[in-house]
């Protein structure tokens, strides 16, 4: 009832805002002597007003807006599961909200991939026409980018960063809730694009195509700008939380590695996300206001878009993959029962990626016609980034070395991250080198490469994190046999699909194109079938999650006997996180080091922490 009330309130104020926006445009255009309705302008203004209405209606007005006018604020408190449908300041609620939303988006976007592979089973056109294929391809791309950017950061990051540093909540709880409630409009806008003709420019939206294509581009642009706002504000919140909210004794050298990876990622989101937003703002202005950022006739330059866009979108791959590294290192240390090897170097590696990540963007533009003298520096910078990445890898390998590996599902996924990303890193060398890149640019080699890095590096990390923290988030244990089945099924079909996909790429099969020469039919049929197998593996995951959340056996507070602080409270944690504030005494990963403790609760009668020497 509360849930229905909350969502219906948000939707109705959102719609009122949308129509107010339309009316405003109609009045202004009527006064200045234009038609009352212009699709692009009306949608833009209507969307902005509708977005504000939606946020206020969902609960931001009561919790925040009233304060601006000096009124008393209030929260809508809903019991049980219904709190997931309200504007809640609790980082644990927001983490679950993000996680469930993005798993749903992930499955929808995955369905798009299945449809694409269906079309690509044979050469020639079967399922779609070219426009429909483009729409599905673009939607798959942008939805998956959204999942990759926000699922780990928004979901697992929100839930576990405050718990791992011993804070009672994020630094700005209301801002946190705001960032989540910006997501449903983004998803709705993107899913609405097929009804306005479908986006056909891929997720990159290069002009001039994005300037001349149909009006669904407006929805795309507005959605992505809103999503950028989510990303920036979320990053800001994480940075402040990690700097100012750590428990006493939680020095920078004792920070769990997942928190470090979130810290670095948040800086990247804060520094670079504006690139995508500004690039799409320019496209919007070119479309709506007739400006000429990208109109070469009037002195504009389409290359400007690519520079501004890749200024974000290359660092974005580190925004996606670094939390995956963080989870992998975290899990590998806990399940190897060893101190994390070369902790300082791993942190240095993460910081090195932060430093170098901003100066490599133009390696996406080797064939775009930028000046030749830029090729060398960007080649060198791109290859140099493998040095800090290598440090992270060596830390993982050194931790595994001589460890007592406990091969539960989270550990399997953690090890898969290392394996898959190594494959993705090796194929990346060919794309960073200008001579080979000129051949491989925009082929399926690129598609295979970035699926190896992002799916192999981050999505496997996401699943490692979900299985690892499932007992903590839900208070119940998942089914280990089904989880292992999911892992091996997904791991094998993923590798078969994308390893084979390199081959048509080397043969010159272009990405983003619905048709290809008949000689590549066999290999494409093979890739399609293994892709369907990969897609089917998620059904096991979904069944396991839903069944275990409702019916699974009740989990202990610390089923993995892990040392970090989030495992020292009950599962799921109480609303205030820590009944007694924790004090940190030592390093989080000192498994087997005599006499070491990580966190203690001085106010509590018994001292539960510091456990976890052995299994």
């Amino acid at each position: 009832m509360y849930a229905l009330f909350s969502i219906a309130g948000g939707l109705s104020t959102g719609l009122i805002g949308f129509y107010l926006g339309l009316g405003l445009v109609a009045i202004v255009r009527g006064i200045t002597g234009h038609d009352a309705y212009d699709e692009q302008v009306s949608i833009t203004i209507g969307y902005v007003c509708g977005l504000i209405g939606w946020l206020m209606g969902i609960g931001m007005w009561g919790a925040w807006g009233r304060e601006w006018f000096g009124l008393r604020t209030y929260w809508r408190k809903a019991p049980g599961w219904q709190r997931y449908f309200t504007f809640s300041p609790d980082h644990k609620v927001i983490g679950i909200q993000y996680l469930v939303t993005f798993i749903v988006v992930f499955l929808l976007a995955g369905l798009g991939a299945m449809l694409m592979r269906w079309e690509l089973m044979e050469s020639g056109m079967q399922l779609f026409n070219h426009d429909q294929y483009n729409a599905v391809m673009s939607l798959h791309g942008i939805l998956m980018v959204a999942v990759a950017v926000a699922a780990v950061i928004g979901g697992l990051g929100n839930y576990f960063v405050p718990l791992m540093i011993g804070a009672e909540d994020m630094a700005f709880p209301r801002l946190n809730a705001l960032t989540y409630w910006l997501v449903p409009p983004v998803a709705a806008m993107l899913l609405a694009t097929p009804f306005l003709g479908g986006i056909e420019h891929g997720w990159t939206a290069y002009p001039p195509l994005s300037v001349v294509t149909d009006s669904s581009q407006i929805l795309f642009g507005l959605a992505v700008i809103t999503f950028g706002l989510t990303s920036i504000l979320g990053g800001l919140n994480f940075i402040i939380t990690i700097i100012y909210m750590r428990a006493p004794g939680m020095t920078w050298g004792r920070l769990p590695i997942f928190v470090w990876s979130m810290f670095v990622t948040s800086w990247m989101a804060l520094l670079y996300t504006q690139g995508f937003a500004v690039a799409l703002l320019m496209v919007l202005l070119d479309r709506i206001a007739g400006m000429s950022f990208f109109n070469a006739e009037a002195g504009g330059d389409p290359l400007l878009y690519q520079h501004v866009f890749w200024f974000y979108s290359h660092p974005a791959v580190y925004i996606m993959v670094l939390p995956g590294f963080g989870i992998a290192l975290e899990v590998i240390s806990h399940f190897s029962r060893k101190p994390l090897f070369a902790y300082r170097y791993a942190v240095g590696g993460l910081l090195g990626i932060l430093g170098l990540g901003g100066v490599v963007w133009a390696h996406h533009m080797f064939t775009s016609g930028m000046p030749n003298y830029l090729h060398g520096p960007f080649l060198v910078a791109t290859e140099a980034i493998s040095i800090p990445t290598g440090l992270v890898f060596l830390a993982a390998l050194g931790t595994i070395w001589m460890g007592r590996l406990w091969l539960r599902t989270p550990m399997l996924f953690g090890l898969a991250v290392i394996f898959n990303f190594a494959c993705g890193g090796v194929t990346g060398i060919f794309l960073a080198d200008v001579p080979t890149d000129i051949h491989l640019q925009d082929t399926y080699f690129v598609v295979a490469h970035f699926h190896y890095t992002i799916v192999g590096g981050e999505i496997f990390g996401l699943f490692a994190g979900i299985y690892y923290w499932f007992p903590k988030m839900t208070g119940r244990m998942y089914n280990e046999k089904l989880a292992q089945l999911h892992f091996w099924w997904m791991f094998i079909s993923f590798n078969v699909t994308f390893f084979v996909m390199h081959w048509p790429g080397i043969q010159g099969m272009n990405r983003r194109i619905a048709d290809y020469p008949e000689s590549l039919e066999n290999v494409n049929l093979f890739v399609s079938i293994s892709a369907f197998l990969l897609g089917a593996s998620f059904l096991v995951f979904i069944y396991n999650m839903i069944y275990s959340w409702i019916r699974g056996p009740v989990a202990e507070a610390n089923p993995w006997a892990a040392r970090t602080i989030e495992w020292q409270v009950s599962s799921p944690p109480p609303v205030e996180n820590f009944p007694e504030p924790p004090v940190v005494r030592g390093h989080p990963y000192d498994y087997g080091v005599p006499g070491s403790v990580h966190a203690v609760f001085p106010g509590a009668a018994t001292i539960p922490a510091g456990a976890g020497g052995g299994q």
Partner: protein
Amino acid sequence: MAAATHAAHATHDSLRIKRAGLWLFFFSETILFGLLMSARFFLEGIEREHLDQALGVGITSILVTSSVTAYMAETAIEHDRRSDAMWWLLGTIALGFIFAFGVGYEWATAEFTRHEAFGTVFFTMTGVHAAHVLSGVGLLALVAIQLGRGRFSSKDHWPISGTIMYWHFVDIVWIFFYPTLYLV
């Protein structure tokens, strides 16, 4: 006593967190404005178009003056001088409006259109900045209303300080935009 110290420590801390968060927000906005400036140099080099120089230097002086009056308002509330603070705030709002009208006048009399490259960057940069000015005026008006109702004091003036920091930030952005558009 211990509880009181603890509570005081908590509010002090949360003020510090808010201040740091606002600075990070400025940092993030700086990148946004920096990208717009880079777009201007990318498309036009350091060519200068003909603009109304007298108007430019005039509105710049007005915006900078408004920053001074905003500072005075903050200083006044820190010394518990409410009515002084109110007058300085109202002055700041007025100067902000004059600046916005100046930009509007420049838009109306510009010798180039938005369809050509310099017009594109000029209207985008001034437009995005003017949107920030207007939102700043709105925020100043909100805190001025609350000040009029007797809310703030030297102990509790974060909304005023935060809004005024935002105002200074918008001013700094213009200090960079002005040479970029008018002088280079």
